[in-house]
């Protein structure tokens, strides 16, 4: 947490201003853009829009900032809290460090949806879930309606409601994910339509499909949760977040000419120190230190602010050391924050905001913030090959030298991956630099035993529901843990194969919820079924592509014909044996060439006679 402070400070500011005076009209809606240069000439831009509506207005169906189209869906599907994610690409934790918002505002590749529905029975919950997914798929032009029973799970410990809910209402958490969904512009447009100012004013003007979906990593999130400040009326809060990591070099290319043609030889940044350096030989330098401006990156500057937005919240914030100089367009008020690593910019609704970050002089060592190391690195991949069975291996690395990490690892697997739970094991990678072998082994053994603490497992039913696996485990400090299990690939019916069966089947990302240290133990002591502690950090692995045995799709008829022929042959044999009479070879009728010839002759003779007559 400590190392995340600088980044969180702004969210903290906005959060205060949103939660402390939620009733004042000015703070019913506000928006903010956080820019943060990352190593390897990348730029993290995270947009955040948040608006509230009081319960009374919501119930009466008077929507002002809260989007009506979404509100109607919530009312109709009895949804108390909703979280929707559209994500693309992968977050490069080694280079970029910890995730924005502690990973709370991102999902696995594709579309992810989880919601708390108001329902007594499971059937009711499923019914509402169905309406919810269908309505959302219509609203967001995403095929969310494909989240059927096989893709829906009910996580036990991985997710906790973020909002304040009345204790008596019995809610059910349902979780669905579509790893194969390709997020694209048609999802962004409805997303923008939900904003009070659309894409027409404020920071939302920067959001443009071409830029967003050219990003190396991007995640759109919608969170709807009830918030009840003490002593005031409860408000329903919708928070829309877009995080994207842009490759500065790539996004500086003009829209009309996006092709990365090689630079002219003279513009190529070369390492002139090489002895062979000449006009036609050039050892390239990495151009990570580049200057950029908002309009270069996003194609246009910020066009004023949304007049509805809370004027006390700075629309744009930039996170670079205060030592760096930043140029802004005129009548833009810059305010450096006390933490010394960030500054914010205030503008009036009409003025444009243009911002330029010049190339740092090579002397300055800290031109950008050093990314914070995340609490955990996770990497998941398939093991084994062949069409019959395979394995999944997740490598979990805890970088911190002293603190151990406790987390919940959740897998939602499709039903055709039949997991062998008994093969699931976690082991610490033994470091070569260790004392004598024997005691190391013994130590590693009992460490391995203590790695997995709880397992929540809901086996799959063929064609009905997928496997749900939640493992509560801990990783000792400064060590790497391998979590592995095997599975069996089942053969689908031939109508169940998608049109691109030979591509393989996507397996959703694993969700890792790291528990904040204090409460973690509490949950563990409470034993099975304990409500886990609040998440300190979330991360998701990449999704996988599982290749199943695919038939040649002209097969079925061949099979039918082949089998029936075989059956017919067998039947013929048995029947003959049953009804034939067996006699000794010499008693049987005469046969062989001679007989055939004889018969033939007889025939001919008869024919000849016939002709004579």
């Amino acid at each position, binding site marked *: 947490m400590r190392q995340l402070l600088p980044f969180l400070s702004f969210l903290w500011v906005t959060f205060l201003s949103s939660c402390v005076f939620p009733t004042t009209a000015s703070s019913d809606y506000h928006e903010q853009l956080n820019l943060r240069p990352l190593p*390897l000439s990348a730029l993290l831009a995270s947009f955040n829009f948040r608006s509230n509506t009081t319960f009374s207005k919501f119930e009466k169906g008077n929507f002002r900032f809260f989007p009506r189209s979404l509100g109607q869906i919530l009312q109709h599907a009895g949804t108390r809290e909703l979280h929707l994610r559209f994500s*693309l*690409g*992968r977050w*490069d934790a*080694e280079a970029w460090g910890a995730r924005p918002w502690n990973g709370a505002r991102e999902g696995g590749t594709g579309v992810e949806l989880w919601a708390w529905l108001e329902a007594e029975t499971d059937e009711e919950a499923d019914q509402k879930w169905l309406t919810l997914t269908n309505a959302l798929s219509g609203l967001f032009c995403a095929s969310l309606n494909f989240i059927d029973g096989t893709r829906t799970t009910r996580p036990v410990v991985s997710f906790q409601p973020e909002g304040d809910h009345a204790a008596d209402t019995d809610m059910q958490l349902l979780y669905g994910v579509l790893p194969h969904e390709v997020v694209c512009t048609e999802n962004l447009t409805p997303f923008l339509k939900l904003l009070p100012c659309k894409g027409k004013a404020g920071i939302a003007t920067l959001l443009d499909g071409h830029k967003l*979906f*050219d*990003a*190396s*990593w991007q995640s759109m999130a919608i969170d709807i949760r009830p918030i009840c400040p003490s002593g005031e009326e409860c408000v329903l809060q919708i928070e829309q977040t877009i995080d994207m990591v842009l*490759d500065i070099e*790539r996004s500086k290319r003009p829209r009309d000419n996006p*092709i*990365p*043609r*090689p*630079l*002219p*030889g003279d*513009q*190529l940044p*070369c390492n002139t120190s*090489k002895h*062979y*350096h000449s006009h*036609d*030989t*050039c*050892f*390239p330098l*990495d151009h990570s230190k580049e200057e950029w401006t908002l309009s270069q990156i996003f194609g246009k500057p910020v066009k004023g602010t949304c007049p509805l937005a809370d004027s006390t919240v700075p629309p744009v914030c930039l996170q670079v050391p205060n030592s760096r100089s930043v140029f802004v367009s005129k009548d833009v008020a810059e305010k450096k924050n006390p933490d010394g690593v960030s500054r914010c910019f205030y503008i009036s609704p009409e003025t444009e905001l243009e911002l330029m970050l010049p190339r740092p002089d090579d002397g300055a060592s800290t031109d950008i913030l050093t990314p914070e190391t995340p609490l955990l690195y996770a990497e998941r*991949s*398939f*093991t*084994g*090959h062949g069409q019959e069975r395979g*394995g999944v291996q997740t490598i979990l690395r805890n970088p911190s030298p002293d603190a151990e990490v406790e987390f919940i690892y959740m897998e939602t697997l499709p039903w055709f991956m039949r997991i062998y739970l008994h093969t699931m094991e976690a082991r610490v990678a033994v470091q070569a630099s260790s004392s004598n072998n024997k005691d190391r082994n013994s130590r590693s053994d009992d460490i391995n035993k203590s790695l997995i603490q709880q397992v929540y497992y809901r086996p799959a039913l063929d064609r009905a529901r997928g496997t749900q696996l939640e493992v509560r485990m801990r990783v000792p400090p400064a060590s790497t843990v391998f979590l592995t299990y095997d599975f069996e690939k089942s053969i689908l019916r031939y109508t169940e194969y998608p049109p*691109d*069966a*030979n*591509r*393989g089947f*996507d397996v959703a990302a694993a969700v890792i919820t790291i528990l904040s240290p204090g409460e973690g133990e509490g949950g563990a002591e409470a034993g099975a079924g304990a409500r886990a502690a609040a998440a300190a950090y979330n991360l998701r692995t*990449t*999704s*996988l*592509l599982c*290749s199943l045995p*695919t038939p040649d799709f002209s097969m079925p008829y061949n099979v039918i014909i082949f089998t029936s022929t075989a059956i017919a042959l067998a039947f013929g044999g048995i029947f003959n044996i049953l009804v034939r009479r067996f006699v000794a*070879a*010499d008693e*049987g*009728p005469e*046969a*062989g*060439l*001679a*007989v*055939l010839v004889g018969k033939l002759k007889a025939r001919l003779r008869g024919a000849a006679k016939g002709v004579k007559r």
Partner: protein
Amino acid sequence: MPRLLASALQLRRDPRILKLPPYLSLLCIIVGVAWLFLLPLDQYSRRTYISENALLPGQVHTYFSGSDQNVFRAYKHEVNELVNKSNAEINDKLEPIVKDIGLKTARQNFTYRAAGHTYSGENLYAILQAPRGDATEAIVLVAAWENVKHEVNKNGIPLALTLLRYFKRWSLWSKDIILLITPDSIAGPQAWVDAYHDAHNPSHVASLPLKSGLLQGAIAIDYAQERRFESVHIVYDGVNGQLPNLDLINSIVNIAGGQMGIGVALQEMWRHNNGYSDRLRTMLRGMLKQGLGLASGAHSSFIPYHVDAVTLRPFGEGWQDEMAMGRVIEGSFRSLNNLLEHLHQSFFFYLLMQRERFVSIGTYLPSAMLVAANFTIMAIALWVKSGQPAEDASPNTKSETPSSTAAPPTTAERDLFLPLGVVALIQSLSIIPLYLFNHAPEGFLTPLFFTFAILNTLLPPALSQLLTTLPRSPTSEHQYNLIKSFSLLLLGMFLSTLATLNFSLALITGLLASPLTFLQPYKTPGARIAATVLLKTISPTAVLLAAATYWGTDVASVLKEGAVAWHICGTYSPVVVWCVWWPAWVATGVVVLGGRGNNRRAKAKTT
């Protein structure tokens, strides 16, 4: 209808039928070979075509040129400084370069032991993570430090580096791109692919610290020649004669030939006038390569894991420069990047006879099957024959009296124990040469081989001697027939099965073993000696020696190649030679030599 069937079955006892099989199997062999020679004709071979529409080969503009050439030259300087350095040093030098391009790098150690040598080294590989992609699929670009001929890949490595740097600028990749730099062309890739699929032996090969998704294709650059080149040579043979999907080759031919105007050659046919003889030569070379089943390049070890791969090797004197080569690879990668599904549309079993002509399995399989069938036919004939009493009447009397069929069919007891035992014994013996030649260190191979050859010549007579002396009842003609029948039956079975896996190997073995069908105990000494000589000349050892001398190498190196391939790539050609062909040969030898002595004794008895 049943009556007809019955009469057809009755024909078995007709002596004329019994005379037929040898001619029949001879016919099979002749037809099989003739079939093979028909294939290059236009009527029998087909034009290649792209059946996976997603590939769209040659549909994209390629921009790899201009100042990238300056970069290439710089990288080439770097590489040239590394020649004759140790593997570790090379990787230490290359890794930072790759890192600067902005890739994630990792290394992998491996150690193989074969034929007394240790093949060890360190693979360096880097992953270019597709922007917007999520590690579900990947394409591999392999650049081995030295190719199969142990020439340093002086242009290939810089080209690969420059290409990766260029690819990094694009945002259109839907699959990760993996750059794999291996110290050699056989062991390194094999180790890496095994580890990637977790099929490796951890004691010899280290696991991969960094991974990506499913491998959808691989292209290896083998660009050792310094001067400008004329056209590209596509090497496509995999281990054990497995082949990449034809679509991959087609699209590269399409890109190189159609788009860049660069010629394409196959199977070292540097000049190819699309005529009969050249087609035939290409096909035969391809079959020979396939039959040997050795790894022919850095790509070979990918193919067993259903990853379609080829090696591109520029050759000839021309005006094409490295950039052109780079554009070919760029185009191919763009095509592979377009793939929505794993390559599955086109053929996996084919014989290429020109870059745009091929025959598919349905067309060529019959020839191998016919050759295999001749053994089976003979085996059945021998079985039937062994069921009848030894006829000592002279054949001409038989032929006059067709009514002999009316004579009550006489039968003879088949004594199966001895023949089965002998065949089993010979088969089990075949383990010995297999083990010896695969595990002996290289130094011993030559003496070992010759001692084995000598023993090999002595083995059949010795066995037949045993057979005549050992058992209480002298071994009868029937039993010899049965021995041969069983061994031929096995041979036919093995070969027809093998033909579906590795057509060429089956065909070659079948042809080499075909004389065994006709060798039988002869009574006249001349024929006997001729048979013995023929037998010796077609023995596996003799053939091996002849082949080695023909290709100007010594037997030891051939055997070593086999052993290395066996240990690293898992080539099973040695198994076929020693456990399929050799036993059949020994069994026939026993019959030929043994039958004679038995005959003499029979005569002695009758007089």
